[in-house]
Every structure is written in C-alpha cells, then in structure tokens.
C-alpha cells in the first residue's frame, strides 16, 4: 500500500505498534522483582540479577493441562537459544509444592523453578489463569505477556525473543 504522506505512514505504523503492545497485554512496565531459592537446583535466584539478559517468567502448576506442553517446549527453546543472554525463570504456584516437584520429576527442566504457593510473586503479576508468562527485556521491562499455551506457540515466542536479543 502506498501512503503519499510519510508522516501519515509513520503515524499508522506507530498506531499499529501501540495496538500490538496493547493487544499483547502490556505497554512497557517494570516487572515486579522477586527472589527465592529454586526448588529444582537449590540455587538462590533474584530477578534483579538477570538485568542485561532477556528473561521469560513463566507461571505454572501441576494441575494445569497446557503446562504439560509448555514446560518441555520452553526447556527445548532455552537449549536452542542458549543461556548467555537469555534465561527462563519458572514460578510454580501449586498450593502443595510437592505436587509441583512430582510434576518436575516427570517433566524435568534445566531452568530454575521457584515455589510460590501463597502468591507472593504471582499476585503482583496479576495472575488469574495458568499458564501465564511474561517476556522481559534486558532492562527488566515487561514487553509482552501470554495467556495459556498450545503446541506451536513457542515458534512465535522464539521469534520475539530473538528480536529482543538482537536489539
């Protein structure tokens, strides 16, 4: 399509970008900070320590059917992208963390998993349904959020992560 006025085409592009950000759930805002000990590796985790990396924060629970697919898909994606500039931090919200650990025995992941049975992390993120994930840029700003998961969603997600890594 040809727009005779460059300002008009810029405006339309800007509007499209704003709409895209609104549709994805977020204009840029700072991700709530959290810290804790990972339940799968026992290491101390602080979101703030990941400044400089692109981060995917993923909330999940053992009773969430789409999580059966999302955790292995994210683990595979992390292996392919590498962890020098990217990391996934998973937040398990099972009321009984043992249920989450049992799930991880069947579906092990390489990235750190924090337990959040009381919502100390989940409530500031406004979690209502699962899975819910947030893509953070290198400055800890939320770039996009994603509700639910179905096979193939990781393809688009990976493109967005790659675009962020190239910035």
């Amino acid at each position, binding site marked *: 399509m040809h727009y005779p006025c460059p300002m008009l085409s810029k405006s339309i592009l800007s509007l499209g970008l704003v709409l895209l950000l609104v549709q994805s759930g977020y204009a840029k805002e700072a991700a709530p900070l959290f810290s804790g000990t990972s339940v799968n590796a026992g290491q101390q985790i602080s979101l703030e320590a990941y400044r400089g990396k692109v981060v995917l924060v993923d909330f999940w*629970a053992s009773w969430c059917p789409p999580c059966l697919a999302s955790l292995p898909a994210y683990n595979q994606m992390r292996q392919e992208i590498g962890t020098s500039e990217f990391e996934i931090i998973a937040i398990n919200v099972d009321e009984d963390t043992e249920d989450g650990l049992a799930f991880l025995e069947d579906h092990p992941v390489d990235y750190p998993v924090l337990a959040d049975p009381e919502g100390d992390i*989940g409530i500031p993120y*406004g979690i209502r*349904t699962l899975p819910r994930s947030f893509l953070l840029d290198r400055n800890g700003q939320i770039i996009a959020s994603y509700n639910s998961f179905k096979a193939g969603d990781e393809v688009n997600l990976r493109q967005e992560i790659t675009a962020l890594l190239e910035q």
Partner: protein
Amino acid sequence: MPLLASINTSAKEKGQFFISYSAENHQISDLVSGKKDVPDETDRDRHSFSQVLSASYAITDRWSVSALVSYVNHSRDIGLSIIGKTTSSGFGDSLALVRYTPLFFTPFSRHEVSLGLGMRVPTGDDDFGSGFVLSEDMQPSTGAYGGILWTSYSYAFNQAGTLQLNTSANYTYNGENDREYQFGHEFNFAVGLGHSVGTRFGYSAAVRYRTTQNDRRFGFDVPNTGGEWVEFVPAVAYAITDKFNIGASGRIPIARNLNGTLQFTTSYAYALSLSYAF
C-alpha cells in the same frame, strides 16, 4: 422470559470480549391451583421461544459491561376454543448491566464475588394483535423499563477450580407500561455445583427459587399472577476450542405455590447456547 439467565456469564479479564447466542423454549402447559397440579381438559398448547444475543466487555479485571437483545415468539393454541391458534413475535426487552467483581478466582483465591446493577429496556412491541391487543403474557416485550440488582458468589473446592459452588441472586423492579400494566417485581436465588472434566467438558446442577409479586393493572392486583417456583436446572457445556463454547440447559419444576385459583405455568424449558470469547 428469564433474560437475566442469559447474562450470567461475562467477559472476565481486562480487554476480553464475550459474545453469546442462546435459544430457549418454554413449554407452558401445566395448570396449577396453589401448590396442586390440575388436569387441563382444554387441550391447550402454549409455548414461548426466545432468542437472545448478548455481548460483554471487561473494561478492567473488576469492571465489565454487558448488554443483550432478545427476539421472542409466543404461541397459544386453545384446542377446544373457536379462537384457535394465536401467535405473536418480535423484539423483546433488552438488558444492560454493569458488573463489579471485587474478588475473583486466581490460583491464590478460591472465592469470587460479583455485584451488578442493570436496566431493562422495552425495545419491542407490547401492543401486538390485529383488531384487539393480545394479553400481556403474549406480548414480545413488557413495554416497561425495569431496574435490576444482581449478585453472585462462587467457591472453588480445589485450586484448579474444577469443582465449584455457585450461588446467585437478583431482583428486578418492573415499571408500568403505557397501558398501565405492571409485571410483578421478581426475585431469583440459585445455588448449585459445577464440575469441569478435563479441559473441554463441564456440567452443573442447580436449584433455583423464583418469586414474583402479582402483576398490577391500573394500580390493582391482577388475579392469577405471581407466586413461587422451585426448579432444577441441569446444564452441560463443551469447549470446541479455547474460545468457542456450546452449551445446553434445562429447567424442570420441583415445586410451586402460585397466587390465585388457577394459573398456567412452565412445564419445562430447555436452551441451547453458543459463546465466543476473544
């Protein structure tokens, strides 16, 4: 026509749209005197078929607005009468409802509370008839504005919310139409259980109590109107995709105590619905 039943489900997360279409058939053939069923020897057949299109939008996670329009077909066939079959059809009343949800389900909360305030708008004909105006119960619209108070409370028995206790109550104040007829004010209370099986299928069973005051014409009570009803309301739902749902429900009388000496009332009702959230 129970318009409010069609607006129970709404958009819940900020920015979500919810659209639904439902079709409900009421068979109104039971003849009741007080609490007793009376044999009907008039070979009468009366039913109402209503179609409702509703839309809902969540302005925030706590505030949503809903609206619905209805189209109604009434049919009455008094077999032994020379009048025979009478039908009417047209747009019925519409509803608009603002809903506030101070507490909603999350992985960290098992309670959900909603409050609503709405308005019933007479968007259809209330003087249907050729030569003479049909009785009020045969009109597509009530012809009058109304005010609605609505509330619901749900409790999830597990974190996943697959088993829930659902309760709801609403009160409708009906105004007077141009012919000085006023439908009785109505109160509904329902309590039931809902269960989801897997990610696609769900079913529920509820008991609903409904009471209406007598209708009034020219300021006086209309005999043989109003009363109390208790119904069993089973329902099933299936998610064809993450966004598209179909459902079916029924209404089966359990008990009733109706005003006056004789009233025709609902024998049973069933409804089909389609909904799409995006």
